[in-house]
């Protein structure tokens, strides 16, 4: 059965109808048509569907859609503004931090959630925050370097 749900995604308030058995990833992709968030394993293993849910990075496949009633959510679509990529997105490009790109939205949202709480994370803190995000093709060094570059840039602010 579909039920109405009210959520704020990327600063925009939505009133949507969604199956009460659906997970948050289905709400985002199929009801709100925000398809930047990718579904990988659907079981909380890979992190491809990472979004920021009330301030915390979570797997969108591990949250029931109805749990999002009243929630504030940020997805990869919140990164670029007015056609300009965000600092993290630019850094991923500069560091060649992706190949197929399927994990990248999740990687960037995990990194964003960390940087929102801790603008100057250490390497270990970055690894801990992103250990739930798997990449099958790039390897992790360039991803780590891309996030470290942003954390480092902010050291000078």
């Amino acid at each position, binding site marked *: *059965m579909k*039920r109405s749900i009210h959520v704020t995604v990327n600063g925009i308030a939505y009133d949507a109808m969604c199956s*009460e*058995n659906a*997970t948050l990833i289905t709400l985002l992709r199929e009801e709100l048509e925000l398809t930047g968030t990718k579904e990988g394993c*659907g*079981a*909380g*293993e890979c*992190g491809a569907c*990472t979004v920021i*849910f009330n301030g*915390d*990075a*979570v*797997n969108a*496949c*591990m*949250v*029931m859609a*109805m*749990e999002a*009633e009243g929630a504030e959510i940020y997805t990869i679509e919140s990164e670029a503004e007015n056609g300009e990529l965000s600092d993290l997105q630019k850094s991923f490009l500069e560091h060649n931090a992706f190949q197929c790109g399927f994990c990248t939205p999740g990687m960037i949202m*995990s990194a964003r959630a960390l940087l929102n709480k801790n603008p100057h994370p250490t390497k270990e803190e970055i690894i*801990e*925050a*992103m*250990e*739930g*995000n798997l990449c099958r093709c790039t390897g992790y060094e360039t991803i780590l370097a891309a996030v470290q570059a942003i954390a480092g840039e902010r050291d000078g602010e």
Partner: protein
Amino acid sequence: MPEFLQPTSLTEAMELLREKQDVRFLAGGTDLIILLRNRTVDCRYLMDIKRIPELSIFQYTPEGLTIGAAVTCNRILHADFFRQEHELLQDAARTLANSLLRNRATLIGNICNASPGGDMIPACLVLGASVHTCSPGGERVIPLSAFFTGVKKHVLRPDELAVKVTFPNKPGRGVYLKKRRIRGHDLTQVGLAGFYGEDRSLAFAAASVGPTPVLIDGIGSFSPEELPGAKEEILAKVAARARPISDVRSSKEYRLAMLRYFTGLAVDAFAAGEKLEVLS
């Protein structure tokens, strides 16, 4: 597929439980959502308990530490008010899955999932935790040592909601050691919690070495100076309580060897008065 219930008070939750049959409780959902998706479990109603304010309690009281059913493992991991005796809960939380899942997974969920390898459970056992429940029939307090009845089985009735876990004041210090194959996602091959009280009592609890997590108490009391000499006796007592099996993650011989190794590390650390870094 289930109908979604979202009570906003314990009273409302109890009223719903009086009216409805076949309800499953949704805390973090990191196990349950997978089971529902795979249709390994089904239920008529899914009750999200996280909007019940009483279940977010997370504080010290004169009786000890209280952790509500809606408190996530990352809240435990990042809490800055823990007393030394409860820090091993943070050691254990650090080893549970990964940060994304810890932002959802709850302590109560880990306990009620009743996995033989539940990461938070050995630490709770050595700290003398109790599970507080609420059902239309009343409330009860269940010592965690009497909570598990088998693999993924516990003593709760279907309409009985675990609302909080309490830990008595128990000065001392503990450690949680976990062996797994890879960092991040892997389940416990062997988990061992040790606790050395200021009263010099020693207790251990182990995960993934039997059908349920097991509390190994009655080890005895030892001064720090006595611990090295008693080490073999302690190792034998701990190993005697383990009933490991061989499976895809480990052989039973390996599990037993790791259990003895971890116990030895914990005894050495307690004897030396040192903080033992969590291994993985």
